[in-house]
């Protein structure tokens, strides 16, 4: 198997961060998407939502900043920014489900060509199932992006014709950011916007989903 380099996690986080319009209200999922916050310009005025009841979340807390009453959705200590607000869980998910957040970025096991996402359960017998806020986040925001590696550790694509893992949400993902390419899930099909260290032909051979090459076009 040839080794495809692509871009690393921080470079990918940079790509996603650059696509978040200034002033957006955004929820960053646990894991890979959390890195995006490190790459938002300081003057972007993006406000981060955490589903455990806060808008205006700051960076991770260090040393004396650590306050057990102030954690993120991953239960790690964080800080608050000026203009932050707190609310209870039902309000927090109403904010999400009600379409008041502009963008949610999730990690995923698989995304289908139709924008279905699977990210909560491997489906393996014996695994203790846990869903958390994944299903609410997937369908709630105005736009749902996925950030993931394109391939599994054993080289299988995670962008698939249909998800084989248990679904989190149906038809909810509009963009997929991966280390090898950025995909836009559009009514006419899956459009490739960016390629990272791979050519379009190699990508189409890798992914079992029909792809439209738009890497030469200006896409807003």
């Amino acid at each position: 198997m040839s080794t495809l380099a692509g871009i690393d996690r921080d470079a990918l986080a940079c790509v996603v961060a650059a696509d978040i319009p200034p002033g957006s209200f955004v929820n960053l999922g646990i894991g890979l998407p959390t890195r995006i916050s490190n790459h938002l310009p300081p003057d972007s005025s993006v406000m981060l939502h955490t589903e455990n009841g806060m808008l205006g979340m700051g960076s991770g807390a260090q040393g004396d900043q650590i306050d057990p009453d102030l954690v993120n959705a991953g239960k790690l200590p964080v800080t608050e920014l000026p203009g932050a607000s707190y609310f209870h869980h039902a309000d927090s998910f109403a904010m999400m489900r009600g379409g008041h957040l502009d963008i949610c970025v999730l990690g995923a096991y698989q995304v289908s060509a139709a924008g279905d996402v699977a990210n909560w359960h491997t489906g393996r017998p014996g695994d203790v199932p846990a869903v958390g806020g994944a299903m609410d986040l997937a369908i709630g925001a105005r736009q749902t992006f996925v950030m993931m590696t394109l391939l599994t550790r054993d080289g299988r694509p995670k962008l698939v014709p249909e998800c084989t893992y248990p679904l989190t949400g149906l038809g909810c993902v509009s963009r997929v950011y991966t280390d090898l390419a950025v995909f836009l899930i559009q009514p006419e099909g899956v459009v490739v916007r960016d390629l990272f260290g791979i050519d379009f032909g190699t990508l189409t051979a890798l992914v079992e989903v029909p792809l439209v090459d738009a890497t030469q076009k200006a896409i807003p």
Partner: protein
Amino acid sequence: MTGRITICDSALEAVAGIADGATVLVGGFGSAGQPVALVEALREGGASELTVVSNNAGGGDHGLAALIRDGRVRKVVCSYPRQSDSWHFDAAYRAGAVELELVPQGTLAERIRAAGAGIGAFFTPTGFGTPLAEGKETRVIDGRGYLLEYPLPGDVALVAAHRADELGNLVYRKTARNFGPIMAAAAATTIAQVNQIVPVGALDPEHVVTPCLYVDCVVRVDRDVILSGERQ
């Protein structure tokens, strides 16, 4: 003692009325808003066959995790039981000793809210078309699929707040608010552990998050105990 609430001297006294078979709503998310003293007292107090509604199913060897380890929990209703340190739940679940009802976090919160708000049921888009929709009534409204979900009331709610006045009005701190306000409203009896109890009139009415009519019992717990020595 002032007004209709009870101000208890100890967590053990506060939870003494919780009966075997009770449905107990337990607040908290991560380190924030965990009613650790009340859950520990519940374990010491001996109630069993409990149904516990909480976001998680306990971590480490204390609180909810210890309650599960000791075989006192019949059923857990939660969104995220699996954690790096949820070994007691994992073992009980795999042994078939505890039943799990897995609920998406937003649906869990809304079902609790509905119970406190007198709502008979509601339609939510969360989970539509997923394995967690199995057996649920569905409806398509304006072209979007929804699931019918029912309220989740408790016999007792155990919540942690920052400050109470002597009437039982509660103020929370930062993300420790999480499930507290909705659980306080959704249970027949609400017990709050707080860091501080202040006289009536000392809380700015504009800052009260849980009005006193939702609260039945308040017990002051040392913040050092709450933080398990992590800070202060």
